[in-house]
């Protein structure tokens, strides 16, 4: 029996001034890291609406990484503090939704920390790999199917009852 090795898909939101630049630096320095991350550039980590994270999971991401400037270093003065506040709340919500710890990660990576991009991406890829696929779209389909079956059963029994009463 052959099994295809699970390769996690991680969506990353990187702020332009620190973490995106750090990822550029990692490239210029030819550091090597896992190819599982897909970076979406935003000007500030504060632009990341918690809905973006939820949407990424809903569309099939196995992990979501959010990278911003270190506290006190935000290019926009304090955007990263707002990120922190929002994401702390989001983390609780994700837990309630059944998204395990480690699938969502918030990291402060400065423009000089190319090596941190490498280590964070590698660590996270390993972590998510060990957690296995999240596959929310698959779960949605299952749940939809269950609901449909339930509906069908309810309809069937209603029809049954109508027959009896008729």
């Amino acid at each position, binding site marked *: 029996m052959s099994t295809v090795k699970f*390769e996690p*898909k991680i*969506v990353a939101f990187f702020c*332009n*001034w*620190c973490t*995106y*630049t750090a*990822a*550029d630096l*990692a*490239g*210029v320095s*030819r*550091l*090597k*890291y896992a*190819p599982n991350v*897909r*970076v*979406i*550039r*935003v*000007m*500030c980590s*504060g*632009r*990341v*609406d918690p809905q*973006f994270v939820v*949407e*990424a999971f809903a*569309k*099939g*991401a196995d992990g979501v990484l959010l990278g911003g400037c270190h506290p*006190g*270093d935000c*290019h*926009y*003065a*304090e*955007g990263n503090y*707002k990120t922190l506040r*929002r994401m702390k709340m989001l983390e609780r919500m994700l837990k309630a939704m059944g998204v395990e710890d480690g699938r969502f990660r918030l990291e402060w990576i*400065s*423009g*000089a*920390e190319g090596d941190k991009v*490498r280590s964070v991406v590698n660590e996270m890829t390993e972590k998510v790999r060990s957690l296995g696929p999240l596959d929310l779209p698959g779960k949605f389909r299952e749940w939809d199917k269950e609901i449909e079956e339930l509906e069908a059963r309810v309809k069937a029994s209603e029809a049954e009852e109508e027959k009896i009463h008729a």
Partner: protein
Amino acid sequence: MPKKDHKTNGLPRVGFYICHCGSNIAGTIDVAAVREYAAGLPGVAVARDYKYMCSDPGQELIASDIEKYGLERIVVSACSPNLHEETFRKAAAKGGLNPFRVQMVNIREHASWVHTDRASATEKAKDLARAAVARVVHHRALERKRVPVDPNVLVVGGGIAGIHAALTLANAGKKVTLVEKEATIGGHMALFDKTFPTLDCAACILTPKMSAVKAHPNIRLWTWSEVEKVEGYVGNYKVTVKRKPRYVNEDLCVGCMECIDACVYKEPKFHDKFNQGLGKRKPVYIDFPQATPKVVLVDPETCLQLKTGKCQKKCASVCDRNAFDFGQKERSEEIQVGSIVLATGFRTYDAKKDKQYGYGRYPGVYTALEVERLVNASGPTSGEIKLRDGREPKAVGIIHCVGSRDEKSNKWCSRVCCMYSLKLAHLIKEHSGAEVYNFYIDMRAPGKAYEEFYDKLLGEGVHFVRGRVAEVTDWAVSPEEEGKLVMRVEDTLAGIVRRIPVDMVVLSTGLEPQADAQEVRRRFNIGCGSEGFFQERHPKLAPVNTFTDGVYIAGACQGPRDIPDTVAQAGAAAAEALALIDAGHVELEPNTSAVAEAECSGCKTCVPLCPYGAVSFDEAKRKAAINEVLCKGCGVCAAACPSGSITQNLFGDDEIFSEIEGVLAK
């Protein structure tokens, strides 16, 4: 005229271009496979690959395709947008397309350079291509906002870099404010006696430039001052400068220094920072005779009048200009400038940290800066090389790379230590006739006439020992070592361990970022590298620019460098500022946010979030409003808006959601 040979199903027609970047991308990513894949994506009317997209023919390809295929959007899959986004926007504009209808995919820095597996890197490039094509459809046509540039410039730091930048700008007719935190300009260069490799006197070449700064009608010199706060944006900065009290009216003092003679302290007895503590000064003092401005100042820590309020104030009574003002207070002044040159310099490594060399424990151990003052004719010993105990050294050992090229302290090469060690070796030998030993790891002399200077020193009979000194000790093991400092070193050329007794040890300390570099860079909203020096925008192509437009860096605040390189960089920073000023205006990135009034519920969530006060609440309409001029485009308000009525240009919800869906769709 759009050609009807390709169906895009009503979607805007997208042109997709993927760059080989020679082998930089094509070496790791199957460029042809990505191109073929992209050609099949919805909306893509044409997909091409090319050796170098950023080259003229590459750009031309985009421009001509726009007309040929009626393209309405462009995706370029190449390097980082931080490098070439502007290039491809211009190419699109040349073809008649709004430049903001371009999206870049970063498959070099973020893929080909960081991955080794061709299949997965290619897969990643396809995912990113799909996301960009999905997102670019939503790109709207945008206009750049033009704002005028204030022609005034702020230069921070009055060392040779700041001096040169200020003079260059002032000579071009721009008004410059030069802010220096010390009481005089001149910086480290003012401490030196001679400069390598020409051995011309530092003061002789520096002081005329210092005087020129003071005398220049276009330069306002604020010493004993520090920048407190910076607000605004490129072309329009509002800077608050803290002016510390000198207790002497700068406009009245002529620098006659009679007050110093008159001071109730008959002898100088306080730590003289300028002379590295080797000399003493009085509470009223001037750093050195050519200090600029030539104005005395009073140290509140040591002045009797300022400490106790009880002093005969002889200084004030001998001053016929009535310049003394013991009631002076610290004050803040606000200035408006369009650009800023940061030239805040460096500090030297704290030699006390390398305990094995005994600095601070053995009086015979000196730092190189202290020796600069000792060999200086205007220094505390008038140029005579005398040890702290008054003896003249017969043998001197100079240890290179103290706080440089060391895993335990600083990993970098400080670039100047080899050369200044050679210079000091020459000067010590010239002034005292002592035997001089240089202990080096590698001799680095890569500058014009530098290697020749090394050759000259070899010919002068200076000894060179290749090896990192293990220890400096006063533990004598033979009669000739009695009363000496013994340098234990493995001579790696001779392959033996040696003990060399000397009277004086000089530690060639390396260059480090200023102690407050982190605070300063935050104040000016720029970055630092991991070692703490200010980060340039690009190490090769934008060495004096920073990530904050209108803020430039020059000199050793960006990394260790010598005087010629510093002056060249200061000139470059001045030229960048001039380019900005002479353009007269800047075009701001149109990534600002806006409120769709009809959808705004007036909840005010966004109002307190904006750090720039760009979001206000219109009480009459009960709607939020964003001032486009103040908005810097972070998007924090757009993320917070519960009704989704705030849109950030280029980073709208529709754009980001389609990008998310794009990277994940299969």
